[in-house]
């Protein structure tokens, strides 16, 4: 086993190692050999980094690298003292680690030497130097007082030099979604040369808040990390807590959870299809898919009582049972949804207004997807066979037959095909689960206190691999809780996908990862050669695209000359 190799190779500098649960390995190493160990693990096949967790133990800081090889997760633990919190960066070995390192740097003040990402990554602009909110010395009230006094969060204008290139800041209110993200594009003519993402507009500080609430209160907070994949988050949370408690839940509850997970996936994928249609100016798709999505929401509401935040998962089982009446209703709706999903595939893949905006758009290679650690349907559309339901099965996914949908299109159209096929797979899983669901209890009583242990849970959320890390304190509140959502894993990859795209393809290429951080249409362009700046809405972009196809304009600046809107920014 690889851990043994590590001990042979590095001797005493590998401090301890072992197994905690199936597919969970840990190894504690000295700071000096981080890069060597990670390099060795990568050569052993641990090429995917799930996330990096920071910890404040009270005696010092700890950095935990979670590396994955088709389901088995190895946690590399490194201690870092408070007075010298430096550690070498591993971004040149695993490029996908870039944002995770930045996050730990922001929240714990660990300096990753060699990480090229500008600060801050997720904290607001103008955040006070040295205030690392997840360190235990800072209480929430103290942090709030400091930021209220200093006026943190005011927009900062970034000035960049460059000849002939155009810099386009997009967002935080922008075109792909309803959530804020800042993207800065470097454009040459019509083509995107480079993309820099500024995330963190939605940073609320949930992880810190969770340390001050009980496990039952946290269930509610976790559900509200994301309103679209709310089942996935509570699923991952209860898995982490139940694993720490060593709690066995009834078989029936496991099946109900699977049904809820898959219903959630279906509604999320249908939602994405609608949004994707909207991004290419094909609103009919939005109206069709969202109308059909309502039937799935009706089911979720019938099962749980809610349309969006279901509160179905509780520690020790599920809150409500699926009765026989409901079972028949679910099967009937599944028949309908199956027909519709096939119809969408049939219609859209033959419709030139769809295919011409998706096939060949957002191209990237499979090796990029692997290196940048893309997850979920995005990765599977780029021919990467990764699915937590299959690789690291939770609940009863190990017993249920289903296909992991992988295509080698390597473009936006591929992400559509993967999601449409996954709807069909989900329907199959639901049918199987309803048929094989055992009778009996669906909830057991769980202790309120979690012992001082660590556990890591992974779930295949609709957007990809979701990972939660829990460290119990022995009391009713967690010592540390860490969440890594699938979108942040896909941000470095979508930046790669966007390179080489057209300006007008930004919305759809960005939407292809089904980003989930929160936006609106507003783009600001600056032509440096003429010192003219302008703001384009999505409609402008669409009109511009149409005119360009007709050949009446060839550059954004010509559009401005014709329709106006330029402002002198010299």
């Amino acid at each position, binding site marked *: 086993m690889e851990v043994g190799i590590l001990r042979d190779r590095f001797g005493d500098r590998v401090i301890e190692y072992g197994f905690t649960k199936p597919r969970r390995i840990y190894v504690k190493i000295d700071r000096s050999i981080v890069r060597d160990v990670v390099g060795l693990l990568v050569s052993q096949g641990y090429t995917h980094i799930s996330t990096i967790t920071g910890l404040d133990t009270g005696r010092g800081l700890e950095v935990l690298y979670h590396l994955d090889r088709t389901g088995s997760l190895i946690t590399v633990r490194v201690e870092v003292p408070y007075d010298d919190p430096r550690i070498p960066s591993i971004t040149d070995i695993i490029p996908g680690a870039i944002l995770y390192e930045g996050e730990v740097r922001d929240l714990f003040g660990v300096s990753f030497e060699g990480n090229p990402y500008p600060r801050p990554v997720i904290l607001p602009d103008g955040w006070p130097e040295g205030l690392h909110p997840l360190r235990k010395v800072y209480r929430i009230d103290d942090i709030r007082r400091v930021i209220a006094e200093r006026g943190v969060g005011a927009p900062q204008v970034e000035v960049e030099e460059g000849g002939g290139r155009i810099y386009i800041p997009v967002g935080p209110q922008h075109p792909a979604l309803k959530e804020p993200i800042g993207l800065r594009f470097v454009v040459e003519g019509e083509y995107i040369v480079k993309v820099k993402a500024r995330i963190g507009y939605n*940073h609320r500080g949930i992880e810190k808040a969770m340390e001050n609430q009980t496990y039952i209160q946290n269930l509610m907070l976790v559900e*509200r990390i994301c*309103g679209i994949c709310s089942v996935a988050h509570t699923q991952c949370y209860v898995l982490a807590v139940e694993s720490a408690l060593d709690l066995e839940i009834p078989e029936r509850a496991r099946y109900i959870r699977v049904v809820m997970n898959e219903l959630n996936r279906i509604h999320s994928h249908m939602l994405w299809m609608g949004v994707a249609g909207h991004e290419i100016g094909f609103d009919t798709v939005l109206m069709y898919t969202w109308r059909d999505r309502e039937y799935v929401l009706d089911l979720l509401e019938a099962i749980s009582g809610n*349309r969006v935040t279901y509160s179905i998962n509780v520690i020790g089982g599920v809150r409500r049972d699926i009765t026989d009446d409901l079972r028949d209703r679910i099967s009937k709706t599944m028949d309908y949804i199956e027909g519709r999903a096939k119809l969408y595939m049939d219609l859209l893949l033959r419709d030139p207004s769809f295919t011409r905006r998706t096939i060949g758009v957002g191209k990237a290679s499979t090796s990029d997807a692997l290196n940048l650690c893309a997850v979920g349907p995005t990765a599977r559309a780029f021919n990467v066979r990764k699915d937590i339901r299959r690789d690291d099965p939770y609940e009863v996914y190990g017993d249920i037959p289903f296909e992991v949908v992988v295509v080698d299109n390597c473009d936006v159209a591929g992400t559509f095909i993967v999601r449409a096929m996954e709807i069909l797979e989900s329907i199959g899983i639901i049918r199987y689960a309803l048929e094989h669901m055992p009778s009996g209890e669906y909830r057991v009583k769980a202790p309120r206190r979690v012992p001082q242990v660590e556990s890591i849970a992974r779930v295949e959320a609709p957007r990809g691999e979701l990972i939660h890390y829990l460290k119990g304190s022995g009391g009713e509140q967690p010592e540390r809780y860490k969440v890594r959502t699938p979108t942040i894993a896909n941000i470095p990859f979508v930046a790669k996908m966007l390179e080489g795209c057209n300006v007008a393809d930004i919305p759809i290429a960005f939407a292809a990862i089904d980003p989930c951080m929160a936006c609106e249409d507003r783009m600001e362009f600056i032509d440096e050669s003429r010192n003219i700046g302008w703001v384009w809405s999505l409609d402008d972009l669409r009109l511009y695209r149409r005119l360009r196809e007709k050949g009446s304009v060839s550059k954004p600046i010509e559009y401005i000359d014709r329709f106006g809107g330029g402002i002198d920014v010299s």
Partner: protein
Amino acid sequence: MHNLDLGLPVLERIVRWARARSPWILHLNTGGCNGCDIEVVAALTPRYDVERFGIILRGSPRHADIMVVTGPITVQMAERVRLVYEQMPEPRFVVAVGQCACSGGVFRNCYSVIGGVDRVIPVDLYIPGCPPKPEAIIYGIAQLIDRVARGG
């Protein structure tokens, strides 16, 4: 609804009539979980179809009459919300959709959250719920349209 004051000048009456029948909205997420956002969009789609009231979702604040805000205000978004609000033409209205936008909701104890939308910009209408159902959103918007018809 739309009980227009007949004592007003004709032009003013036409303006109010037009405004009440085409309330264009701008949707801004200021740090929410997306739950309210998908319910706002669901209200626009066929089952609920608020487009029958003349409501259209616009991308640019300069085209919008009503700003629909979802989510608590995060430290990073606060100043930007104000900037977006200031770009909207008068008369402008703000609707806070969801518990977070009303008061900070479950996130009120987070260090990077300031609180509800009214901590940054004036709010005309609060639609509580986590998230509010599309029916509740439609009810709220209909009340606001009534107010728009009466001149804001």
